[in-house]
């Protein structure tokens, strides 16, 4: 072997060594992040380094404060929190971690609607084995039903979204609109607004299928029959008379030009609300926080916001519905499920932590320690110009909420419902036919996924 060859071989070898060193380095840091309780990967400071650590994924805007409060108060366990993204982004990472069998945190923030899907993938621990019933009394039966399946409990509720009608007091006054208490009155008010050259009464956005689901539920839809005692069997009922009435009603509002059909949760929509393009916003208890903080200022000049109970189909039998809401669940990849359950039960549950959530308008707490507290009911809400919105509207709505059974394929259902809502908006289908088609699509899908459809 001559000199040149030798030099070439040595330098190539050196390159290779560098490469393997690189990858060896990469794999150790990878291992560090999978063992997520490693203190270096936490986004918060650990107060008691000797205590066992529980890793948590959550995206509450004030979670940093909450975790600090929790860690200072717990010498026996420390939370190691990181933000894996909001909603769908986090679920995508969690799904990947489930498929890989590694990489999930011990405790994860999930919205109610995705719980059955992750239960079915055996990604969540049944908390009844670890004493979840200790905190059952802290929540309303509706909130507890949302996290339960059969006799099992898969998460601890934190935040809810009882629905109400947020409206622009200034616009109502200007056009002489009285607060509608039924959907018929809502339509009459919309007609009156339009006749007087006023703004839209509201908005029917195709990207809020959860909102539309809640409104159909209000009129008697019981979309899913599903629980984990027979996880291969599901009942689907999306095209009952009540749901069709709701779909036809909104299609009527759209065809008369009484409501807008913009996608929600974007700058255009929030900007439209600030500038007085809409007289009402049918939304949930978290909406004031979204509109005054995360969503950008919906408090344009002269905008006076107030809130009233959700209009009803039948005022003699009022129905309370929910949009959104989040929980803390324990994953089956948790190293110590008992300890993780303790964290799920106690994180965002102490008075100080919940008070911070209320003060920053981050959550609408479901814990009775807040719902039943005098200070919560009598707190004037700045967004509503000092209206005691919680006591007047949201607490009664939450207490009347009966709970909901979600399907194990909520994301797919929402994507199909969005398509149906587009056909309703574009009038390419009637509200009734859109729901009939949706029913058959979802039945076909459930069968293809191996479910027995009842």
């Amino acid at each position, binding site marked *: *072997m001559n000199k040149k*060859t030798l030099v*070439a*071989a040595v330098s*190539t*070898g050196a*390159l*290779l060594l560098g*490469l393997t060193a690189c990858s060896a380095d990469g794999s150790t840091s990878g291992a560090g992040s999978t063992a997520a309780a490693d203190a270096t990967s936490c986004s918060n400071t650990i107060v008691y380094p000797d205590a066992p650590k529980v890793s948590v994924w959550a995206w509450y805007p004030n979670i940093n404060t909450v975790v600090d409060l929790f860690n200072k108060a717990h010498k026996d366990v420390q939370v190691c929190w990181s933000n894996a993204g909001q909603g*769908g982004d986090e*679920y*995508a990472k969690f*799904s*990947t971690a*489930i*498929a890989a069998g590694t990489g999930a945190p011990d405790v994860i923030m999930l919205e109610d609607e995705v719980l059955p*899907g992750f239960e*079915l*993938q055996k990604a969540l621990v049944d908390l009844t084995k670890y004493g979840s019933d200790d905190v059952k009394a802290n929540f309303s039966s509706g909130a507890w039903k949302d996290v339960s399946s059969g006799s099992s409990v898969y998460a601890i509720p934190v935040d809810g979204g009882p629905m109400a009608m947020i409206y622009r007091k200034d616009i109502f006054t200007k056009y002489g609109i009285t607060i509608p208490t039924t959907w018929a009155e809502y339509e009459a008010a919309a007609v009156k607004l339009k006749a007087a050259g006023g703004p839209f009464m509201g908005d029917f*956005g*195709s*990207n809020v299928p959860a909102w539309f689901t809640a409104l159909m539920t209000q009129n008697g839809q019981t979309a899913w029959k599903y629980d984990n005692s027979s*996880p*291969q069997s599901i009942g689907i009922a999306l095209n009952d008379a009540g749901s069709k009435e709701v779909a036809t009603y909104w299609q009527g509002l759209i065809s008369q030009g009484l409501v807008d*059909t*913009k*996608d929600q*949760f*974007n*700058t*255009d929509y929030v*900007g*439209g609300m600030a*500038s007085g393009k809409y007289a009402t916003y049918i939304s949930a208890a978290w909406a004031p926080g979204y509109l005054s903080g995360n969503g950008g200022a919906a408090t344009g000049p002269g905008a006076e916001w107030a809130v009233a109970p959700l209009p009803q189909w039948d005022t003699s039998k009022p129905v309370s519905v929910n949009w959104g809401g989040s929980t803390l669940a324990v994953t089956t990849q948790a190293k110590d499920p008992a300890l993780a359950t303790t964290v799920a039960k106690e994180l965002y549950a102490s008075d100080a932590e919940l008070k911070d959530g209320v003060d920053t308008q981050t959550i609408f707490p479901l814990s009775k320690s807040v719902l039943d507290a005098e200070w919560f009911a009598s707190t004037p809400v700045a967004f509503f110009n000092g209206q005691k919105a919680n006591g007047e509207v949201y607490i009664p709505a939450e207490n009347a909420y009966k709970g909901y059974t979600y399907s*194990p*394929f909520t*994301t*797919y259902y929402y*994507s199909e419902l*969005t*398509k149906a*809502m*587009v056909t309703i*908006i*574009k009038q390419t289908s009637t509200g009734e036919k859109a729901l009939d088609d949706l029913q058959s699509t979802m039945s076909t899908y459930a069968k*293809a*996924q*191996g*479910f027995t459809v009842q």
Partner: protein
Amino acid sequence: MTNPATTLSSPGAAATTPQAASTSKKPQSRRRSVSRGWIGWLFIAPFGIVFVVFLVSPLAYAFYLSLFSKGLATGTIFSGVGNYVKAFTDPEFLSGVWFVLRFAVVLIPVQMAVSLAAALVLDSLTTRLANFSRLMIFVPYAIPAVIGSIMWGFLYSPSFGPLNNLFSLINQQAPEILNSDNIFGGLMNVVVWQWAGYYMIIIYAALRGIDPSIYEAARIDGANPRQIALRVKVPMITSALVLILVFALIGTLQFFTEPQVLKPIANGAITASFTPNIYAYNLAFQFSQFNYASTISFSLGIVVFIAVYIFLFSTRKRRGGFSS
């Protein structure tokens, strides 16, 4: 592939070499080349390892996944080509493929026309303005696709965008570009500007490679500038044009970023199966169907392969030295 030029010239070369010398040298050189063979492998090893670890093995694993099927309520079972049969009869997948094919058919000629015209104009100008214009046409490509899409989202906004100002001048409501009727044109516009600059640079470079004496000859023969552009320049850069056509075709069939970014403001126009790539992404990460998502990805790969093959086959006679 053997180069016909070397096979032709080697007998001639051998004929001039003395027979004895060549026979005595040959074994030695062969031994040397064998002993040096492994050094070549060493040199490509850094690339080869990365290639195998990060490209070949994930592809192989995805292909393996695509042969199994798992329903939400059932266990994993081997289904062989069953998933592929399902994919090519799945209306969601087929409508996505149909969309990207239509998109490619309209987009590519437009993109080509814009980039070719820009390159020809810039090539015949030598002012400072030409340099500036070249930079400006290229800038959209330098902006990441995600940022570019967000910017277009604002430009299209009926309440914030410039369209609103323009239409209010004539007392009209600004059109809603991001809805299911106009989304095709809206996305088309974004992608044309995103890539036109990049293709313009490729064409421009090819034009710069042409020997200027050819233009001189054309001028002496009485060709005017337009004839030089269309009859001399364009035919001489066919291979560059074919190259960017292939790039554009593959890129368009894998359309993902722009619709994914614009989805939240598209008023329901961008569905979960809008393009095959978006469908694969949603299947895997939203609907928890990794196996079927792998199948969709490979099926898209098959579609891309067929489309590129048909394209290269149909331009075989006309193109220059792109693949030889």
